């Protein structure tokens, strides 16, 4: 897990959750952090802008999306995979 990607994602999520980045842990889900569907869509937008990638995500079928959002750790790995794919 790249330190840089991890830190930036935690920053984005912490901002949405109105928490200190130190209070966000990798095993938490967005629900645990109190992030609703609007917060999720905003987080994905921030991730796309920060890493200059396109995240495949449709709010109508979040569970069927290729983008795993089940925990902070899952989001970090998914973003790393997208960076590897799209920046290769």
């Amino acid at each position: 897990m790249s330190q840089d990607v991890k830190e930036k994602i935690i920053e984005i999520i912490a901002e949405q959750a109105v928490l200190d980045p130190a209070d966000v842990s990798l095993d938490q889900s967005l629900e645990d952090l109190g992030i609703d569907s609007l917060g999720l869509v905003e987080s994905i937008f921030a991730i796309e802008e920060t890493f200059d990638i396109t995240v495949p995500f449709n709010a109508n079928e979040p569970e069927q999306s290729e983008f795993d959002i089940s925990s902070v750790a899952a989001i970090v790995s998914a973003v790393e995979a997208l960076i590897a794919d799209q920046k290769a």
Partner: protein
Amino acid sequence: MRRVVITGAGTVNALGLDVPSTLKAMAEGKNGISELQFRDVDRLSIKIGGQIHDWDAEGRFNRQQMALYDRFTQFTLVAAQQAISQSGLEFVGDLALRSGVVLGTSGGGLTTQDDNYRMVYEEGKNRVHPFVVPKLMNNAATSHVSMEYNLKGPCFTVATACASSNHAMGQAFNMVRHGVATAMVTGGSESMLCFGGVKAWEGLRVMSKDACRPFSLTRNGMVQGEGAAVFVFEDYDHAKARGAEILAEVIGFAMTSDASDIVMPSKQGAARAISGAIQDARINASDIGYINAHGTGTAANDKTECAAVADALGAHADNIMISSTKSMHGHLIGGTGAVELLACIMALRDGIIAPTINYEEPDPECALDVVPNEARDAKVDVVISNAFAFGGLNAVLALRKAP
């Protein structure tokens, strides 16, 4: 209180450029969704919509008119011409003073804004056409209808996102019902299918890339459409005295606000609007035979709407038919309720219930008779039409067969 009837209807949308062709397409379950065609479409991730491809604006309007009519105004004027001509009304003398226009739109002249922002920001031009403001303003369509047909009474535009035209028609209904106006030209129009319009919607991540499948378990979002529908609402006694053909009677209207979330719909708010329309119409829930659904094809709307219908109608919810014609013409945002009112008129007049096309698999959370894929013959006397907007603003109309 006066009775209110519909004596004229007109439309342009992805299914047809008039009412007969639109109703024929609805009865055939025709799909009006296609590949979008406009500048920069390759930069969009959503590339489908209910776009009107064979719109010959230059053939319909002269140079002076083109300089003043955004696409949403063009759609409105053509639909209004059909409706007013069908009604046979001529607005002169007292009738002109006692008749008006209330139309819904959400984006107004969005194409004009898009084109001109592109010109000054992207192309670096420092001058825009002198008529940009009167062309883009949301009330442009209403004003041009008023000017074209000499309608000098109450005229205004309503913007409540996806409920705009239902809210507009509700106002028109109440004005005639309470004797404020003798006739009202009403409905709505939308033309958001331009690069900036679709790009903004992409951001919400609620759009489908392949099809609009309301109530189907496999639904994956909404698909936008464009066009207009316009009606003439008239005092029943006035219409009867002149022997006008009556398409349907408008009997009730209610509006509510969820007061909860800017995008997520609420079952309670929607159910209160449906119950309110039933009460306003002084009918029983059991009188309803068909509901034209808001049915956007998003995960959130369709299950909330079905739950709201079940709440408002009780056990009778299992007896009614409910369909979403957005599956065929797309979501016309501020014009959608107006185009969908045509399906209500078809149900009452012709006994044909428009289907919900693209239906693939039942969703246990949408367990109503959604008239999947094929139109149905049925005799219905009372119908309602739902519209539930972003912002939590709900507007429901009730109609009855012509007296």
